[in-house]
């Protein structure tokens, strides 16, 4: 469909993922996945728990290999994109290293890129200011609350200023206020830097507020059932959350999700 635009950020074609193939615990996690993310686009992935959102993200990140199909990231095979460190990733679990201070956790991707120390320190300070944790630079992760740890993980994902961000429920452990602040900050960073984002979430309003496009998935086997164009423009503010168009899109996504479960309650999707 939109493959006509040159060199999209992510192209997923004909992807299928089967775990433990042939074994009794075989899981058909994903089937017939085709979608494209344009450069600078913000795409939210939403769907009930276990529908394969994290799996899809890990496929794009080349952390696991597809059973069938191809993934092209930044115009090259996903594998090459990973080797080139073309993306930053924040996973569902913060995964901070206990033995490193907060700032040194944020500097980890930069160390692997071979940046020198002063440059790393400058960038981590900038990132800490962004997530409002400057006073905690030299704390150890285990001295922070769960939400603060998650903000450090987000700062780490953003640190290298990658063109593509892959985020798996990064704001899950945050309170409503911090969550809205981080959402606004993420949108600001993305529009300033033209970053492309693939964002997994459980929350319909979050998916709609952040994204240009919401990809709706259904479980077992996981497939894409709808794409909702949000069309709220790029300038979003607190007012956006109260606009009628916003509620219309939220309803649209909710109905798309319902369509996948006639009559059933939607397990694991947040209406808030």
């Amino acid at each position, binding site marked *: 469909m939109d493959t006509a635009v040159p060199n999209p950020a992510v192209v997923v074609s004909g992807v299928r993922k089967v775990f433990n193939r042939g074994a009794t615990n075989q899981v058909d996690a994903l089937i017939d996945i085709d979608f494209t993310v344009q450069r600078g686009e913000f795409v939210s992935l939403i769907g009930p728990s276990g529908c394969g959102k994290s799996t899809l993200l*890990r496929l794009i*990140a080349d*952390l696991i290999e597809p059973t069938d199909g191809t993934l092209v990231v930044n115009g090259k095979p996903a594998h090459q994109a*990973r*080797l*080139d*460190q073309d*993306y930053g*990733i924040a*996973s569902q*679990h913060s*995964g901070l*290293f*206990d*033995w*490193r201070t907060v700032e040194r956790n944020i500097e*980890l*991707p930069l*160390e*692997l890129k071979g940046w020198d120390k002063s440059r790393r320190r400058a960038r981590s300070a900038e990132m800490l200011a962004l997530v409002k944790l400057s006073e905690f630079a030299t704390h*150890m992760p*285990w001295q922070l609350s769960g939400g603060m740890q998650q903000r450090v993980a987000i700062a780490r994902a953003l640190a290298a200023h990658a063109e593509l961000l892959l985020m798996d429920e990064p704001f899950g452990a945050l309170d409503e206020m911090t969550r809205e602040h981080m959402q606004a900050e993420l949108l600001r960073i993305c529009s300033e830097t033209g970053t492309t984002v693939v964002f997994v979430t459980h929350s319909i309003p979050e998916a709609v507020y952040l994204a240009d496009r919401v990809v709706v998935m259904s479980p077992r086997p996981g497939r894409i059932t709808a794409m909702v164009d949000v069309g709220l423009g790029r300038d979003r503010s607190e007012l956006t959350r109260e606009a009628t168009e916003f509620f219309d899109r939220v309803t649209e996504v909710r109905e798309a999700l319902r369509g996948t479960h006639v009559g059933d309650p939607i397990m694991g999707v947040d209406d808030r």
Partner: protein
Amino acid sequence: MSARVRKLVMFPVAFAFVAAAWEGYKAIGPANGGRLLGMRLLPRTNSRTMPHVWEMVSRLGRPEVRGGKQTILSVVTAATWYSFRVAFTAFVIGAVLGVAVAVLMARFRLVERGLMPYLIMSQTVPIIVLGPLIIGLMAYGSRDLVSKTWIAATLLGVFLAFFPVAVATLRGLQSTPPASMELMDSLASPWWRTLSKLRFPAAVPFIAPSLRIAGASAVVGVVVAEISLGIRAGVGRLILSYGQEATSDPPKLYTAVFGAAALGLVMALVVAVIDRQMMRRHPPEGV
């Protein structure tokens, strides 16, 4: 800080308790031993078997042999210091070797599969036979036995210290959280950088306690080697030879026992310091 002071005060307090128990039993126990549940279990309390604590302590200040110049304190101290050096060398070599082998096993499945059975089997060999075996293997027919037995004692200490470290390190390297491994993969980190930045530091909470075991094992290995090989200089040999004088000079044996106890204690302290340094950046227990 006060916790550390309290820990240091613990040592003399513990010593005082043991001394008090010793003297207490000596005061009330049967002089010629006694029966308990029909067996001769209760030790004799006469001064040949159980000299007073102050006799042992004062024995330290007198010469080792009648008319000799060296006090027994300096002889025991020198022997203990000698054994400590051997045991500490064995501990360091054993620990380094243990970590190195574990890294190899973590890197190559084949090495793990091939080596693990031998490792486990090696620990079933009674250590007492190993000393003479090592000597026999490396110094058969040689006259230069002193230096060779020194090496043999070290080897035995290494042999005992190596195993707990290797096993704990391997377990530590294999229990890296998968989410952290994925993060390093997403950063295209090569194997050895993942090892140095993630897997090894994540294994430290496994390795540090194994060092305590390794330290104690190195001491056991070295003392056993000294006793079974008859190394002149070590504290193990002193226990053996002073034990032979137990009838004529009962407190003498206990001065060597003090030396052996001090050896274990100093090793434990040194290893505790290493342990603390290694765990400095890790969350304290219960976090």
